[in-house]
């Protein structure tokens, strides 16, 4: 994938069907049950490693799915899916995070922003659930 300036993709509730907007290709990566709640998995979207997170519901809110780049932008090593997830902030502004397993920098899973180092961030990808499958959206680069 080329170095596209990613916009912040809104992550989607389980059954929300986002219209296949122009420029997004949905790629089936695995069954919903394959992803353990609050654990990441790594998938290949094209040849780009992507980390997909299933964030369990709490306080009556919905389950949430997020996808970000799998490569730790500081070390250049593909490990983000093996990071610990968490939350920061107080209701109603609770933000899901993942901490790099290498040196623990935390990233906002919704925006990809690094909370501990403003000079780096992770690319983000849209995720949707479709007939029991997890699909990750990849921007279609105009040729």
């Amino acid at each position, binding site marked *: 994938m080329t170095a596209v300036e990613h916009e912040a993709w809104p992550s989607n509730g389980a059954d929300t069907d986002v219209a296949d907007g122009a420029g997004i290709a949905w790629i*089936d*990566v*695995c069954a919903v049950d*394959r992803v*353990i*709640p*609050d*654990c990441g*998995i*790594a*998938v*290949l979207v094209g040849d780009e*490693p992507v980390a997909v997170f299933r*964030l*369990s519901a*709490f*306080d009556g809110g919905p389950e949430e799915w997020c996808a970000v780049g799998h490569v730790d932008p500081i*070390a250049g*090593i*593909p*490990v983000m899916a*093996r*990071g*610990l*997830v*968490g*939350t*920061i902030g*107080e*209701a109603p502004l*609770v933000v*899901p*995070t993942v*901490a790099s*397993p*290498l040196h*623990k920098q*935390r990233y906002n899973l919704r925006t990809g922003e690094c909370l501990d180092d403003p000079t780096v961030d992770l690319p983000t990808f849209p995720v949707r659930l479709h007939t029991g499958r997890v699909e990750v959206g990849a921007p279609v680069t105009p040729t």
Partner: protein
Amino acid sequence: MSPVANTSDISVGSNGLMETRSATVKSRSSQRRVVVVGNGMVGQRFVDDMVERADGAWEIVVIGEEPIGAYDRVALSTWFDGASDDDLSLCDEAELRALGVDFRFGRRVDAIDRDAAEVTLDDGSSLTFDHLVLATGSYPFVPPVPGHDTAGCFVYRTLEDLRQIRDWSTTDGGEGGGESPSPTGVVVGGGLLGLEAANALQNLGLRTHVVEMADRLMPQQLDPAASAMLRRWVDELDITTHLGFATKEIEASVAPDGTKRVAGLRGADGDLIDADIVVFSAGIRPRHQIAEACGLEIGERGGVVVDDRCTTSDERISAIGEVACHGGRTYGLVGPGYTMARVLADRLCGGTSTFEGADLSTKLKLLGVDVASFGDSTLHDGDDHVVFADPTSKVHRRVALRDGTVVGGVLVGDASNYEALHAMATGSMVSANVAALVLPDGLSDVEVAELPDSAQLCSCNNVLRGDVKTAIGHGCHDLASLKSETTAGTGCGGCMPGLSALLTSELEARGVAVDRSLCSHFAHSRQELFDIVRFHRHRSWTEVVRAHGTGRGCEICRPTVASILSSLSAGYVLGGDQAGLQDTNDRSLANMQRNGTYSVIPRVPGGEITPAQLIELGQIANDFDLYVKITGGQRIDLLGAQLHELPAIWQRVLDAGMESGHAYGKALRTVKSCVGDTWCRYGVQDSVSMAIEIERRYRGLRAPHKLKSAVSGCTRECAEAQSKDFGVIATEVGWNLYLCGNGGRVPRHAELFATDLNDEELIRYLDRFLMFYIRTADRLERTAPWFDKLEGGMDYLRSVVIDDVLGICDDLEADMAAHVESYECEWAATLADPDRLDQFIEFVNAPDANSTPVWVTERGQRVPASAGAAR
């Protein structure tokens, strides 16, 4: 087994150090000798100050009459409440000897030869001095009434006195009071010391009386109204007081064999008080006899006369503490004595400080009652008094004003605002709001103006609030470090609440969080959370966070809860919803390296490995192109495995009869050992077998931090057990156990916990110790910093683990038994379950694709390219 009784037993390990250091000190040719006569609280403080200040310029010799070093006489009555000699000890004899201090206990100075600058000891030996310090203290005054030396009459001054009182009252006294339910003890003297002695007798279970010649208790400190209020407290404690009672004679009973023993006290007016034991506590007198004999000037009412430098009428002789008479008076409080010790040490080290008299203000808990007097506490005509007196709550508070300024007062039953009132009476704070300050705690909501930095916080050590604030500013953010830095709170301990409050308010003012919450998701400390999980028998993260936390947790609380669940034997660490809690290493059951690959470290219990296992590990490394390194813990580290390779590698490790080494977990790592008496010519026990037994027992035990151990087969200590969280060293008859050491960034020697344990005792104490640590430590806190925070140190730890003072040892052992019972090799469990193996597929939607780290070759092995490139 014999738990170590006192610090002097521990000197073996530090002998080498001791000799080296004292040799260095003694090699200084210019060194002068100071001889300290007396090793009471003040004498000891002088030694401590000198060791800190003198930098080897003075050789220090201490002559102490008692068989042991200085102890806390102020807290003497706690001895009957369970405090041990060690608890009361103030003299770190082993360390001070190591620093060159020459202690001669059980010796007395009989004479001083001023011309020869020499003292003669009671064994006939003599010792020259460049400077002589008299710190002989005082002796209890026994009124010369007939019968005062009858068997059953005691004084209350030393630990030996306490032992005699206890022995008499538990054996002889019991017989003497045959028909009465419990023996009767009578204290002669209703002053401060007398009431302390009464407290001690009360603690011994005696029916206790106090007789006082004056018309009230504590006549020297309290006015009649305040004293009457104190008497209400004393009455309530079932201590019978006899005021205005002049003892005329001690009456004795005579047994058929002619031996006499105390039977009672006869008063001047003929009244008789029955007694099985009599304790004289009618005041103290300075022990100035040897000074007097050599011609030093003695004060009118006793004591060796000293000037502001604590120097006597002989320039080479000083006197400090209760034996010193300064400005015509002697001081019976430890605070002024400590100040004299500091002044004298300063002067001998070239300083110019002076002792200008001391204020006799005190605040203490007497018989559990707060009693304080400050400034000029006696009643004077013409003074105004603001008084609060409430007989129902037994509180009496009086503050004297002269021309509108606070000059002194007394507080009984409630000593709140003492610090502010004391500061006003001593002029370090302007008198204001006096009426509000006189009201007891809870009745006044007037905010006390902030005390000035010059106000005294600790009267024993004369530590000012400003001193404490400075120390907090220098990073002392807990009570333990604050105490050791400032010495506040190390005397009677009465200022501890004030110290704690000042610490909290200062930290808040500085914006330092005093919140012990684990993180924003749990309002509990790790210890609280552990107790909660244990109590509710939670078995999953979801249960814990739903019931006690908020949100989804974070990278702090999730691994902490995972560790707690594991410590409480909640099963497979990646089972249930625990997988998502584990930190990276636990999640993949391997340590992630800098390039995203992992290390594989099988368990090698005790460092013992068969040739076949060693060959197979080499073969595995060859087949997977893994870098091989011998670890510091007698194991073998195979590095460079990719996530998807881990199951195949571990399958081969397991097939070779080995198992997970938990190198990835906050858990027991290794138990090193030397070869022991199986091979070694010097070994006295089988250290390998013991190391293997320990490692097998505690393998997989999850803890707040990693745990390391070692077992040495003799005192040569080849396994380096004293640098471990728990280390075991063989003796001729068993094992010595050392606890709470570590290597790493801040190395720490483990401390001797118990000696000559047999195998069962060793394992039992280890079970209890480890579970107590796991239960109470903070997250990521190793045993050494955890130990530092235990109030009471090693004695306390012994009392918990050996004597079970908390009554939790059954629980601790049960928790450990559950761990041992439920242990399974995490890799065996993982390999047995195809679903779990899914976690080791790198890309879920492309099982055959794997990322490819870049490697280079260094010294014949494969290493990450980034590391090679960086060089």
